[in-house]
């Protein structure tokens, strides 16, 4: 059941116009991004989505540190944005772009003031080498700690919102 699909797709309809949906998703990403899903070491101060191709999405720590975990690959307001997912299976920033997956988000008017947000996280197989190297990663002791903390939290039975 680990599956062979190399993409995750999901969508949601929001009661808000296209421009607002795009703006909140990008400019205001820190307002909705699940707070436990950050790989920055320091406590999180804010998130930044740079509104241009070649920009980054990054976390800013309270100590001023930055964690750049995505590159903006397409920026077409208010319809579409694509960014890389530069996070390895060991929950570290992936510095090799060939091992990064990517996320495409499309904003589609649904009539009235409603917008459909379609999300595809694809090329997950690019992270695949991580599975082969997993024992090395485990042996080195890096990375897994944070993944396991999240894992434990889920395991403790916290219901997953929206699941």
């Amino acid at each position: 059941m680990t599956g062979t699909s190399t993409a995750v797709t999901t969508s949601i309809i929001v009661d808000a116009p296209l421009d607002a949906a795009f703006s909140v998703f990008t400019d205001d990403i820190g307002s909705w991004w699940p707070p436990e899903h950050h790989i920055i070491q320091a406590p999180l101060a804010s998130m930044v989505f740079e509104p241009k191709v070649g920009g980054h999405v990054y976390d800013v720590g309270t100590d001023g540190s930055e964690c750049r975990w995505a590159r903006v690959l397409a920026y077409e307001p208010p319809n579409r944005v694509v960014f890389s997912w530069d996070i390895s299976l060991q929950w570290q920033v992936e510095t090799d772009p060939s091992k990064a997956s990517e996320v495409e988000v499309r904003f589609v008017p649904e009539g009235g003031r409603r917008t459909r947000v379609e999300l595809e996280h694809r090329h997950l197989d690019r992270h695949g080498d991580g599975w082969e190297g997993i024992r090395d990663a485990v042996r080195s002791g890096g990375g897994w700690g944070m993944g396991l903390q999240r894992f434990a939290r889920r395991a403790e039975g916290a219901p997953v919102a929206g699941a």
Partner: protein
Amino acid sequence: MIANPHALDALGDPTRRAIFEQIGERPSAVVDLAARLPVSRPAVSQHLKVLKDAGLVRDVQLGTRRIYSLDPDGIAGLHDYLDRFWNTALHSFKTRVERQDQQEETP
């Protein structure tokens, strides 16, 4: 995040979770785990059996030692994890964008 529902049950126990985390830091034999945790060897063995049955750890015989390591096949596929993550994230996004939109509509 976890492909196997037994995995969640297996990790519901704090001692078992501690063992699992120790193995996550480095593959270990029973004797190593018993030395690092306030748990007897037989108890460690019993917990390892549960973890192994749940598909979370696997073992390999190395000489006289049986070494336990995490089983990457049992630990969720990235696919499952991200599937859950994005559903959670988009619902959070929806809540936020609709609240903001209402505020802007209010004169």
